């Protein structure tokens, strides 16, 4: 994957990891969670979730398995792996400190 989407992809990755840290979920569930938790501030193009999910699966941050949802529909359910857990801790801390720094800079005037 190219470098140019690094920040964005990094953010998306963080959001996905965070969503999955609560509970294993499918792509739609993750999208719904992000939308709800951000109170509508963050809307993502839902199709772009999937390349990210597959890349993270290949990197063994999350693990996907096919299962049947409560309304009897086949969907791929993603679970956080130990490696994913560790990654979440690292980038969450990184992001928080970055955000803090950025907001401090913005408030300075």
């Amino acid at each position, binding site marked *: *994957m190219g470098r140019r989407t690094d920040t964005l992809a990094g953010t998306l990755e963080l959001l996905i990891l965070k969503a999955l840290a609560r509970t294993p979920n*499918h792509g739609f569930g993750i*999208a719904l969670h992000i939308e709800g938790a951000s109170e509508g501030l963050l809307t993502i*193009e839902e*199709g772009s979730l999937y390349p990210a999910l*597959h*890349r993270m699966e290949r990197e063994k941050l999350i693990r996907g398995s096919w299962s049947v949802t409560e309304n009897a529909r*086949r969907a*791929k359910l993603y679970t956080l792996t130990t490696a994913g857990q560790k990654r979440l801790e690292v980038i969450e801390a990184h992001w928080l400190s970055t955000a803090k720094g950025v907001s401090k800079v913005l408030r300075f005037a």
Partner: protein
Amino acid sequence: MRLFAWLRRRFFPQDDWREEMEAHLEMRKAWNRDCGMPDVLADTEARKKFGNQTRALESVRDVYWARWIDEGLQDLRHTLRDWRRHPNLFLTILATLMLGIGAATAIFSLVDPLLFRPLPYPHGERLVSLGYTGPIDTSEFLLGGSYLTWRDEQQVLSAFTAMRPAGECDVNLNRPVRVPCGLVEWNFLRTFEIFPAAGRDFLKAEDSPGAPLTAILSHRFAETAGDRGIVGSVVEVDGSKARVVGILPSTFVMPQLGEVDVLLPAQLNEAAMRAPNATMFLRAFGRLKPGVNVRAAREAMTPVFRKTLQDFPRSLRSEAGFVLRSLRDRQIEEAKAASWLLMLAVLFLLAMSSVNVINLLLARSEARREEFAMRLALGAGYWRLLRQSFTESVLYGSLGAALGMAFAIFLLRSLSAMAAGGFLRLEAARVDGRVMMFAVAISLLCALTVGSIPTLHLLRPELLRTWTHATARRSRLRQMLLSLQIAFSLLLLSGSLLFMRSLLNLESSKPGFAPENLIAVTVNVTHARYSQPAKLAAFHNELERRLSLLLPARLFAVADSLPPSGRTHGRPLANMFVDGSHEPLKNGGMVAFRYVTPGYFKTMKIPVLSGTVFSEEQRVGKESAVVLSDALARRIFGRESPLGRRIEVGSGWLNVIGVVGDVKNSGLEKPSDPEYYRLRMRDGIQLGYTATAVFRTTMSAVAIDRWAKKQVAAIDPTVPLQVVALPERLRSLNDRPRFLALIMTTLALAAVLLAAVGLYGVVSFLAASRKRELGLRAALGASRKNLIAVIEKDVLPWVLAGTALGVGGELLTQRYIRSLLFDVSAADVKILALAVALMLLIAVLACWRPAVHASKVDPAITLRVE
């Protein structure tokens, strides 16, 4: 293709991705509906929120591709780094692969046209050749009357055709030439499903006796005539006019592989063929009906054969046989055994070079174990490691294929340069697309086997669990491979010794005359020009007179043919009669004969065993005398003296005046036929269109050529002649056995070299892996000799097992090569013993150096390392 689909599903499960996204859309739609949107809006809203699905799919695919390419590049880098670090190993492996693949490819290109490539006729596998076998000819033939019966009564062939044995004819198309001609039935080309490239095929009407003559020309011949409008023109064939109706395709070959330039309708006269004493000689070919195989056809035709046996000359009937075989078998005859032998030998060699590479890689992977164990521990999957070695194998395979093909082209060039006549259709062998495909296939097969065995060996879990050296378990795999190699090379070694022995026997076999300093001048006159006996006799007498001027009479002779060729004239023994009786002789077989001048025996140095030979005075008047070869005298008269007895050979009773030594007359390899000599009479009744003058002289063939040309031109400037030195001609007759011996020896040398390298490698490895033990032994006082013995004890049993296996293999395969040997029994114990001794000697030598090297351990250093 199925594999491809599987791979695709395994690595790019696009349907899964799509299903996953569809599920997402469905769930979003349901959600939207639950929020109160109407159906249509729920759907469009869901799609809008999802964005471009195709692009999403493509992005997912990119994720997988990127990963693959990334890892592939990584594997490549690993491999290249590895090669740079061990250039010697890398070069040895490549050289070994080049040797194995190159040799296999070269031999394949030789035998492919004979064994595997489809015949140049549509559905060629259904074509058969059929007929009688008997002492009259070496290939199957049919007699006219039998042919008609077979044709009318057979049920298994969809087409059945015949031709007269090919001969030469005088053709005048712009200029007179003598070219090979074929007299064929009108359905001949149709049976082979060959259509003329220009013009048309013969019509049935043109094939009836007395019909106006038509002709079909070969592409080559039509081209030399250079005339575009040749179809429809008229050519002169043996003095008659024939209209050209068609041109053969340039790819056409006659079913018996001979060249042909002019095809004419045979115009068989069926009534005459059915007459009781008709002896028309034919070659017959057929096309099997669908669903009939050769064996079934043979069974179905056997009763017909039995029925027509009465057409066979009564005296020969007991020796008649029936043959129906595939056209391919007819074409390659005795080259078949040689082809399979070479193919087998070279596959052995390929297997051996693979084994060597496996051994080298095993040693390498032993060293790599730590690296692999570490990478596994760090989270690399087995699959990932397997793929790494797969990449390496494919690299080896493709480099091996490229080098192998280059080597094959080199081999093929040198082979055809060294022995052009050494192999049937050697000139047709080349490295083309088919051969390249073969090379690539064997390279990949080789590379994958070679790559996967060490890796699987390495990835055994118990080896990977620990990364310490101490667990170096002594695996039996490499020793077993070693035994196999020794067995293969012993097989090739003993085979090549047999062929060399056979070649030596051939080269030293006595032809029955002294070929040194003999130069032969052969003159052919055309039938059309010399159709009158008187004119022909005048030519022959004048030719003999002029040529005899050069040398005294005892050094010059004229005959119609020279040994060791024979079969130019021959008659069945059963057609000879003795002492006024007309009871046929029973012993069977063929008898060769020649017409010679009185000086023949002296010039050729054929010893006179008893009686006397011809004199000049006997050449005029009525023919009265005959000279027998020793073998014929004994065949007919046993121990009685033949002198003064009378025999009849088709031209009145002749007195046996002498017996001379046997000469080779069926080539050098086959046992000689008995032979008799008749005198070349002056009146020319039996003088054919060919005369061969032979000179015993120290002059060069070039000088004789120049002089003889002048003499012949003085009589008739249109008559061509060929000059050949007999020693050279004899040598060239051994081209095929020499070729086989040469190739087999080369292969055997390569095999022995590979076995030695393999052995060397295994011993070095074993010694290295027992370094600590050896050091300990040395510290405890073992002498160098003891240490060497310890190491050798590890390999010796395996060497011996391999030798035993090789001897067993040789005993099993010997009966297949017997037919290719001259005067050597394939089970020659002396040769086998020599091969075993050589092999063991080489084995000991190959073990020696690494063993000695290992025994030089300094106990202190070795022990300190641990």
